[in-house]
């Protein structure tokens, strides 16, 4: 923190602590939170890097009760937004709304018509560019302009969102409210990019360690998938749950869930992007409600999932970047208790992340074909969604389709689409090499012979402050500390009752009524 607080500031912090206790039920700020809140309350622009699970939403939620006006939170993902809205509703906050592309137009107009009553407004960057939305927002007072997942603004970030590039302009249009940019992980280059792109001035940096000290780490080298499954079953029969098993593909999630259910009798389900939306939501709710011990999933699961008592995160296949890995294991033990992250690694697994990287971009043939069809008028750039779908029909992955869209949208009238071919290729080579670098970093982590924690901290230019008891396999880690008291058995769990009358009565709270 460095400097001393003046009276005014310590007064503000006292009020903030009061809100923290009254609204959220916590006695103390967690590390980093107080500093961010103090800067925000003083009206400064703040850049905060806070690891997943460190309670970054508190940093704008508490000020929301002390500042006058609306806290506007720009959030890139619908699921994330939904979860944040729900968390506020759960503490009894009624004046929280979201604006995104998935809403019924009537609902949208209702929100815009009652802006003045709103304390927290979550919004997608696309929505913020709509004229009607911007006009309505410019008529009310904004207390804080929060950019969540701020790394999306950077081309060097892993999740670049072109719509984020307009945020600086929009903020100035809305009278330059103080800005809080938050992200879980960003290296120095990305940080600079964010501050510049968002036009943050006299910015205060609050950089927290990416270290999740309560999550122990292990990498387990194996020869084959069979060996992996064997090891996984051994692990799951002993350690504390609930847990998540991340897999590289849909088939794997189904296969592993099947094996574990049959072998161990654990309440296990799978989750991946190929499922119907309703089924995905059911599984998600089952997991959150404690109806499942284990979830086997692809990386489609996780964003916006807030379950504090996940004890175990297993990687059956390793992700493409260190950043994704930290993001995924960061879902464990948000309640501060001890958690465990285990990664199973076989040499041949590398083709999965390599495949993902390739699928991120169109290949030359596809790119050339699309540009030609645009020139010939066979493909038209009208509605974004229709355009993306027609690209996917031609064999592009979703990310590759997005890449093409972002590049052709700036081609002006009279210009030849095919003329940007070389430029696109150059971009692809550049971005691809960034991703390959990240992958090789990930592999270095897997093969490292020194402390895992020290390694990942060094990726973010950090060093370890003190040695932990439960650190990582390289420092010596016994799984005894993670064993569950009594192994779950496969008895029928009461919530799985199939008797329709009983089930319906419980849903409608009728059984209680009769008593």
């Amino acid at each position, binding site marked *: 923190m460095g400097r001393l607080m003046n009276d005014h500031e310590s007064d503000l912090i006292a009020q903030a602590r009061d809100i923290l206790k009254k609204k959220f039920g916590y006695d103390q700020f967690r590390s980093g939170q107080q500093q961010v809140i103090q800067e925000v309350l003083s009206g400064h622009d703040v850049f905060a890097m806070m690891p997943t699970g460190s309670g970054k939403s508190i940093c704008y939620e508490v000020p929301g009760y002390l500042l006058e006006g609306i806290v506007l939170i720009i959030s890139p993902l619908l699921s994330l937004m939904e979860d944040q809205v*729900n968390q506020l509703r759960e503490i009894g906050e009624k004046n929280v709304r979201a604006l995104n592309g998935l809403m019924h137009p009537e*609902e949208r107009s209702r929100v815009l018509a009652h802006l003045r009553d709103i304390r927290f407004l979550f919004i997608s960057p696309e929505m913020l560019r709509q004229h009607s939305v911007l006009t309505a927002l410019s008529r009310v007072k904004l207390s804080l302009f929060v950019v969540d997942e701020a790394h999306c603004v950077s081309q060097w970030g892993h999740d670049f969102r072109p719509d984020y590039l307009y945020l600086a302009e929009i903020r100035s249009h809305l009278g330059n409210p103080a800005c809080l940019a938050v992200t879980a992980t960003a290296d120095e280059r990305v940080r600079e990019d964010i501050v510049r792109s968002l036009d943050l001035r006299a910015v205060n940096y609050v950089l927290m360690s990416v270290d999740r000290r309560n999550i122990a780490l292990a990498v387990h080298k194996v020869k084959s998938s069979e060996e992996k499954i064997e090891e996984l079953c051994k692990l799951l029969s002993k350690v504390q749950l609930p847990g998540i098993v991340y897999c590289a593909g849909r088939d794997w999630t189904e296969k592993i869930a099947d094996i574990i259910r049959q072998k161990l009798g654990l309440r296990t389900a799978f989750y991946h992007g190929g499922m119907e939306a309703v*089924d995905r939501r059911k599984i998600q709710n089952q997991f959150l409600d404690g109806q499942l011990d284990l979830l086997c999933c692809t990386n489609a699961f996780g964003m916006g999932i807030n379950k504090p008592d996940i004890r175990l995160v297993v990687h059956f296949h390793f992700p493409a970047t260190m950043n994704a890995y930290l993001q995924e294991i960061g879902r464990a033990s948000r309640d501060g208790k001890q958690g465990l992250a285990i990664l199973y690694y076989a040499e041949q697994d590398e083709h999965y992340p390599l495949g993902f990287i390739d699928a991120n971009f169109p290949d030359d043939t596809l790119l050339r074909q699309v540009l030609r069809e645009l020139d010939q008028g066979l493909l038209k750039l009208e509605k974004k969604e229709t355009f993306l779908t027609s690209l996917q029909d031609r064999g592009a992955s979703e990310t590759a389709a997005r890449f093409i869209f972002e590049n052709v949208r700036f081609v002006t009238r009279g210009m030849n689409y095919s003329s940007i071919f070389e430029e696109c290729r150059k971009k692809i080579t550049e971005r691809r090499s960034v991703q390959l670098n990240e992958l090789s970093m990930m592999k270095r982590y897997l093969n490292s012979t020194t402390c895992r924690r020290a390694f990942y901290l060094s990726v973010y230019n950090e060093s370890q402050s003190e040695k932990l008891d439960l650190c990582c396999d390289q420092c010596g880690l016994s799984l005894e500390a993670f064993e569950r008291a009594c192994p779950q058995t496969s008895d029928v769990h009461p919530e799985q009752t199939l008797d*329709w009358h009983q*089930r*319906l009565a419980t*849903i409608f*709270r009728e059984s209680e009524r009769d008593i």
Partner: protein
Amino acid sequence: MEYRYAIILYLVNQFRGERTISGIYHLLKGKKSSQSIQDSFLFHVEPFFHSCEDLDRRDFKALIDECMSRRWISSPEQDSQRFVLSSEGERVFSRLDGHLLTPEGLNFTEQVNEESRFWLKLQLMVQTLSALLYHQRAFLPITRQPSVTESVRRCIMEASLGRSKLAAYFYRELVYFLQRCPASEAELLTAQLTGYKMSGLTVKQIAELTGKDEYECRILFKSALRRLMREIAEFPNYYPYTGRLLIVKKSALSLSAEETLKLIRSGLSLHEVAKKRRLSQSTVEDHLVEIALKDRTIDMSNYLSDRLEKQILEAASEAKTKQLKPIKKLLLDRASYFQIRLALAKEAVRRGEDPNGTTDE
């Protein structure tokens, strides 16, 4: 025999190798193309249209492969995607009880276009009421489809009752219905419902828990859902609240076909309708075929003379096929594809109503 094999053998037998395996897949998924709708009538398998809407293409393909490796179905031509029953398949199939394949409710297809939306609304309504009853401040809704959310919202706002009263009425109506539904169907419908701290199960999960076949679970559930929709349509007084979630339509026509029918009734020609609605002529033709299938009272003589109709049907029976191309060829191009489809559609309706009747009326 497991249900999943039975349903495939049954459908392969009905389709008689006149459609590829995708035709069966689209039928089960309920693809809203005129081809699929028409096929369901042509081959007399309307109950199965849209009966397995959550079917995964890869799962379906695996099932077909399995039937092939068991030598129950085979392809008459090499490398073709058209299948017929093998003699072994026919033997196995002949021992099946057809009634077990089609639970009664599956036949109630008159609201088939509404069933997905109705089911989503019902699930969201139940989840919302449960949350209200348990004073749950926030929950992750089972669906975010804007139109579904909006109509459930409206339904709750418009009911001028306290929320616990509204919930009690919903509960009573559902119990009233489920009591009169076969127990296995009632179980399948209810197990999918989500409430407070009791998230609904997926069909796959129910199949695992009960040891039932996944396809059978889908069909039993669909039967239950269609029973409920028919009950609501026939006895609205018994379902004053659940009924608000269902817009009971008088005809089973898709919205777009209905619009076309309205214009045709006002005297517009096929061409004029296409122009006015900015649709292609073939889309409007699709609508007319759908209309012919679903409402036999509409006069089609403007598009198809009795004489030509008769010739088409003769050609079809001569060629022993329902495929358009050979029929057209046999008629030396005297009839358009549209006219052939229309004739076959009218014929399918006649035969559907009187399965023992002959081709001629």
